[in-house]
């Protein structure tokens, strides 16, 4: 009798626990069942919807536009449900690597040039060649250089969503107010420094000429390129000690004159555009990717202030142009997706569909599909127009993009930021700090190889 009671309680308590597990499991079943629907459509195909997860990073503007485009896709394909998972840049790849490790990554993954090789080499991404051959994913109108950029070991893993170039973004209002001429494409780092100081002197305390970007590795990279070197060569630092000291000296001089943000203010800036001095109305210049001009414009506290963009300043006597065209973001498939064909369809839709690309505009960069570019040209907004023109300008005077960053890049990138903070807060001495950074980075890089 007593045993029976125990038995009942046991069953009840266990069923409570395992009930919880199975409830979660059953949620995923419709998706798993739907994987068979490539074949003959069964009678109850309505209930068997294909469910896809998609992830991307970006600003609120991008979230809104992408969700809108995905809704349009679902209207056209009622049998496919797309669940978006979006976030800012910070932490995006932390989360993605965890999901890949847990074999639970989204079906569609927005990928960055810096990480593409890593993920492709580790078989995390879907080989898209099958689908370009089957016609589910059309790439014949795409820029060949962008197809190359998405190819690793002769396999196409990623489709470029937009073409970008780095530039200096500035407030046209402040430039006009202070009678500063718009910089032209031939401006130098000295011009940049002079303008920043001029703005600071005219506007007084609480306003800076530019945001301190001394810790932004990929802007430093431009200066290294201008000296004819690459940031990384053969899996080690390609930049010389002189490159580092020139770079930090430039920013040190600006800091001494108060022309850039204070070390403390710089520490509070993140990649979120809302935190940048330009957006907050406390600074006149910043560095950004051309496509971010749209989000930057939307993040402006003073919405009347029209942002403009110019190429990065040149180095006096530079060896080559540091500017380059970059595949802004890629869209990739997850190698373990249950619905590779549908994944290819969504990617195709995002880059080739006239309506979808009209919604997305050039928020991720100038579209790669030449037909779409031609079609959009007539309906561009002022900011979009500026981005198109800017990318055209860069296309005329650029050098080739460097190969993707080597493994270990993220750790070196973090250390570079720390180095810039050491210098800004005046901890230690410039030359010694640089030496230490270079040694530790090279050791990180050789270990990661």
């Amino acid at each position, binding site marked *: 009798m007593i045993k029976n009671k125990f038995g009942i309680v046991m069953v009840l308590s266990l069923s409570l626990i395992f009930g919880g597990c199975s409830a979660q499991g059953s949620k995923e079943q419709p998706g798993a069942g739907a994987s068979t629907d490539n074949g003959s459509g069964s009678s109850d195909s309505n209930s068997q919807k294909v469910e896809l997860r998609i992830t991307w990073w970006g600003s609120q503007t991008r979230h809104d536009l992408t969700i809108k485009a995905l809704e349009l896709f679902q209207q056209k394909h009622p049998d496919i449900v797309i669940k978006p998972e979006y976030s800012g840049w910070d932490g995006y790849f932390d989360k993605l*690597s965890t999901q890949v490790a847990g074999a639970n990554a989204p079906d569609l993954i927005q990928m960055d040039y810096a990480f593409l090789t890593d993920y492709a080499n580790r078989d995390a991404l879907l080989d898209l060649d099958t689908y370009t051959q089957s016609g589910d994913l059309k790439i014949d109108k795409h820029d060949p250089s962008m197809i190359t950029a998405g190819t690793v070991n002769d396999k196409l893993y990623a489709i470029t969503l937009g073409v970008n170039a780095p530039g200096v973004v500035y407030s046209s209002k402040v430039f006009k107010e202070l009678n500063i001429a718009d910089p032209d494409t031939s401006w130098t780092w000295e011009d940049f420094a002079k303008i920043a100081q001029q703005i600071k002197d005219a506007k007084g305390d609480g306003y800076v000429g530019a945001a301190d970007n001394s810790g932004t590795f990929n802007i430093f990279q431009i200066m290294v390129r201008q000296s004819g070197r690459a940031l990384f060569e053969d899996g080690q630092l390609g930049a010389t000690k002189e490159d580092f000291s020139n770079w930090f000296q430039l920013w040190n001089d600006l800091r001494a004159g108060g022309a850039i943000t204070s070390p403390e203010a710089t520490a509070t800036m993140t990649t979120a555009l809302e935190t940048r001095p330009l957006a907050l109305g406390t600074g006149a210049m910043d560095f950004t990717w051309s496509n971010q001009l749209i989000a930057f414009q939307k993040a402006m506290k003073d919405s009347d202030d029209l942002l403009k963009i110019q190429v990065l300043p040149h180095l006096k006597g530079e060896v080559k142009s540091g500017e380059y065209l970059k595949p802004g973001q890629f869209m990739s498939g997850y190698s373990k997706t249950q619905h590779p064909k549908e994944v290819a369809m969504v990617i195709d839709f995002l880059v080739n569909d006239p309506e979808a690309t009209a919604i997305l505009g050039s928020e991720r960069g100038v579209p790669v599909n030449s037909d779409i570019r031609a079609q959009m040209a007539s309906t561009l907004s002022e900011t979009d127009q500026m981005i198109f023109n800017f990318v055209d300008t860069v296309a005329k005077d650029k050098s080739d993009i460097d190969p993707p960053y080597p493994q270990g890049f993220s750790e070196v990138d973090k250390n570079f930021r720390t180095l810039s*903070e050491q210098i800004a*807060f005046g901890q230690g001495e410039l030359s010694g700090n640089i030496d230490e950074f270079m040694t530790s980075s090279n050791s990180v890089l050789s270990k990661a190889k």
Partner: protein
Amino acid sequence: MTASSMTKPQKRSKRAKKSAASPNNRAALFFLAPWLIGLICLTLGPVLASLYFSLTDYSILASPNWVGLSNYTEMLTADKLFGTSLKVTFTYVFASVPLKLIFALGVALLLNKGIKGLGIYRTIYYIPSLLGGSIAISMLWRKMLGGDGLVNQVLLKVGIHAPDWVANPKYALYSIVLLSVWQFGSSMIIFLSGLKQIPSDYYEASSVDGAGKIRQFWSITLPILTPVIFFNLVMQIITSFQSFTQAFVISNGSGGPLNSTLMYSLYLYKKGFAFFQMGYASAMAWVLLLIIGCFTFIIFRSSRGWVHYEDGGK
């Protein structure tokens, strides 16, 4: 947590083995089953896996290769940031734990004065403990202590130009210490219940003998409270060593400015998930376990000297 959960299962499973023969205790085993299954699958499994990974170069995306003890040797000999993160964490633990306990005890003493609406106060002071670990509170804290945050605006009103507390490498860690002290609620509740257990005749007797309030505190309250202090101390040390969220949010995940908030677990997380060195991160986790284990051991050992049990510790 890790330290305590390591010792517990051993004891229990021994006990369970001894008694498995008797049918009456089979039921007990059944009731324990959900917990045991959970422990083995969700705690013990991952713990052992991490021990294995700590001896490999596992990078999340690629499969692990055996590297022996090289993760450990690199940590102790070559990795400067490892030293930095230890320094930050020790500073944090040694600043926040005593402050928090003193604060908790102080508030508990005040609340023990038999004031009206004790329940309400107790709840209000406990709320930060519930919310404190959350992302939202850390964000709020960052805003409040930021350059033009609430705190600095108030200071400006009285003519003080204060720095940006969370962005200045000198103060950033202490703003996190402050946030942790603010979450004194759970320790306070435990102190409060400890205080309630002290028989009031002790105080009456001592006041007849002419002892003042301060004298009573040192000679009656504090000694009787030592077991509670001991408990709170151990718990706080263990959780403080593992502190992560606040530093992560306040520094935007960077441990900055200038690595001044690079807590041990934040660095461990960065190594594992941002730099793809999960093997190294696993090794760091085991070193942290050792450190926490050592501290807990030292406190337990020293407790014989200063913890006073009324029943003589039986």
